[in-house]
């Protein structure tokens, strides 16, 4: 064997310094390129997050104004019949005795949110002992006041270019000097549904809507997807038909999501007759959209189970179903769950198909069930981004922050689940 060794082998490897230096150089260059790529990706992510956070963090604080309210029993009971708005306005007027003209009064009221009447009613209902007392109540300021406090309104420009007139500014300064202005945590953002008034708008409705819609999606897609994956991977005979099915599933995963919206509109809404803009309709549409992804990821998880486990089970005399349910499925479950949660996270952020089935409506109530009209977080963001009021800008960014937090939470959950159920083989 050694006698006809080609000359090129006989001379041995070229270990010259020049060659090695060149190789090391390209190695280093590649590494730097990799670091550069990762760095720029992280940089862009940081820029994105910073810009959103910087615009949105202010939405978590809200300006409130303290007024003295006299809860005299005649004015306050019965709660259904009383004009709390009148009570509120009386309390405001009490602070500014010098404001006389109707126009001025209206301008004064504009410093406050126009829902403060409801706030007083809620206060009395929460704490009936207030009856007969005179108390200092913090009520919401209007969106314009809020913007002023947060520094978004320029005092220096001409009055006609401002949302608040000079007079309003003076009143405001007086309130401030009296110590009646404060910034409190914006609980409303998390406890109220959408509203036309920015200071009263919250994401609860959209949040509940998202949760309901995703529940429907999960309940539909996980069992069906897993069962389909198991059948295709373990039981189906491998012939031309199964190839055709596999190709089709892969293609479906790449279909633009808006197509599923059209499908939902045509079939679910028109033919089946599901109520439009409801979590059930949205859930079904998203389920159809996510199903191919779940099937593909579940099949990968099943393929990753080593065949030696299956052989061992079959060799023991286990039937195909016993093999799958006792051995393959438990081992593939972490991968399947991860795939499912990632699919859900994707579905959470989908807007286009839901727009098609009408979830773009303006919903002020928090949805109570699957057949109530609802909206979802991405759509809410879309609507707020479109709104003209300045106050909605920060709310849009805040809503985006909530959505991103939700996504991160879901992904963390996926990782935890995977770690918990992962079994080494």
């Amino acid at each position: 064997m050694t006698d006809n060794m080609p000359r090129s082998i006989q001379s041995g490897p070229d270990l010259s310094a020049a060659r090695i230096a060149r190789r090391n150089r390209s190695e280093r260059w590649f590494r730097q390129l990799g670091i550069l790529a990762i760095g720029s990706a992280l940089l862009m992510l940081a820029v994105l997050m910073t810009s959103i956070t910087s615009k949105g963090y202010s939405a978590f604080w809200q300006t409130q104004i303290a007024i003295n309210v006299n809860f005299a029993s005649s004015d306050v009971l019965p709660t259904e019949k009383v004009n709390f708005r009148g009570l509120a306005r009386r309390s405001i007027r009490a602070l500014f005795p010098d404001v006389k003209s109707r126009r001025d009064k209206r301008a004064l009221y504009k410093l406050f949110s126009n829902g403060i009447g409801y706030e007083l009613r809620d206060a009395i209902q929460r704490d009936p002992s207030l009856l007969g007392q005179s108390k200092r109540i913090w009520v919401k300021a209007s969106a314009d006041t809020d913007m002023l406090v947060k520094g978004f309104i320029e005092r220096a420009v001409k009055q006609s270019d401002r949302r608040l007139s000079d007079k309003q500014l003076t009143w405001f300064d007086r309130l401030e000097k009296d110590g009646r202005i404060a910034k409190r945590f914006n609980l409303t953002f998390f406890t109220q549904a959408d509203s036309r008034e920015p200071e009263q708008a919250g994401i609860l409705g959209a949040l509940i809507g998202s949760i309901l819609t995703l529940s429907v999606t999960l309940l539909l897609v996980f069992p069906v997807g897993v069962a389909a994956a198991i059948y295709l991977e373990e039981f189906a005979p491998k012939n031309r038909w199964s190839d055709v099915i596999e190709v089709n599933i892969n293609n479906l995963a790449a279909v633009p999501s808006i197509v599923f919206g059209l499908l939902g509109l045509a079939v679910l809404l028109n033919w089946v007759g599901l109520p439009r803009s409801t979590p059930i309709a949205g859930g079904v549409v998203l389920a159809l959209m996510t199903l191919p992804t779940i099937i593909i990821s579940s099949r990968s998880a099943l393929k990753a189970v080593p065949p030696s486990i299956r052989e061992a089970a079959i060799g023991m005399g286990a039937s195909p179903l016993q093999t799958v349910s006792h051995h393959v499925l438990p081992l593939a479950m972490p991968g399947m769950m991860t795939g499912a949660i990632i699919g859900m996270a994707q579905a959470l952020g989908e807007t286009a198909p839901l727009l098609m089935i009408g979830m773009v409506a303006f919903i002020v109530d928090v949805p109570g069930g699957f057949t109530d009209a609802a909206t979802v977080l991405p759509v809410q963001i879309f609507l707020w981004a479109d709104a003209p009021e300045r106050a909605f800008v920060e709310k849009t960014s805040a809503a985006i922050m909530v959505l991103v937090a939700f996504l991160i939470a879901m992904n963390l959950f996926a990782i935890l689940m995977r770690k918990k159920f992962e079994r080494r083989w």
Partner: protein
Amino acid sequence: MKNEMNELCSVEGAEYFEVEDRAPLAEVKLFARDVGVKYGENEALKNVSIDFMEHQVISLIGPSGCGKSTFLRCLNRMNDTIEGCRVTGEIRLDGKDIYSKATDPVEIRARIGMVFQKPNPFPKSIYENICYGPRIHGMANSKADYDDIVEWSLTSAGLWDEVKDRLNEPGTGLSGGQQQRLCIARAIAVHPEVILMDEPCSALDPIVTAKIEELIDELRERFTITIVTHSMQQAARISQSTAFFHLGELVEEGKTDDIFTKPGDERTEAYITGRIG
């Protein structure tokens, strides 16, 4: 003397082996006639006919790709799981055709157990590994029954002393030799009649291999064992009969003593003495 005894016995397939005191009258447990295997167009095995005698160890030897593992997998219908694999010929266990439409492959695999080349314990506890077979075949009713089964199987496999304190630890946490013994214990827990072993020691060191060979010798009293092996020394040590396969055919089959001292076929001689690969 041998011929007279054979005449006296005159049962088909019965042979009197003078040397084996443990199994004085051996019967044919399993036999194959004209077995062939095709993968698509490729003929992997043809015209294989062998008798497997009860309580005997028969080893199948031959170069790589000669079809011995394929043949082994025919015996418990494991080839059913391979797409495009067609088995022809007749294989009968206690006289019953295992490939007939009426036979359930699950039943065959409960009666003919298998130990694989690479140890493959289930990713469950040692206790669960052993119990799995008895559980799916309805062999036990109470926890006490299962405990007995686990203890007997592990003791028979020579593993009890090493793992009796850690039955709830995962089976995959044992060393290679222990894992293989666990797989053997798992196979015997369902009390099969025949045990097929596909190169069980090829991944193990010589000491562990010796322990498993000793185990096989002891198991012979209860089971019929067929072992595929690459090591001729191993075949010579543990089997009573040896069958040599080459290029998909059964070249020669006979008593181990004869095959290794004076084989009949030239191809067998060439393989055994290391003259062909």
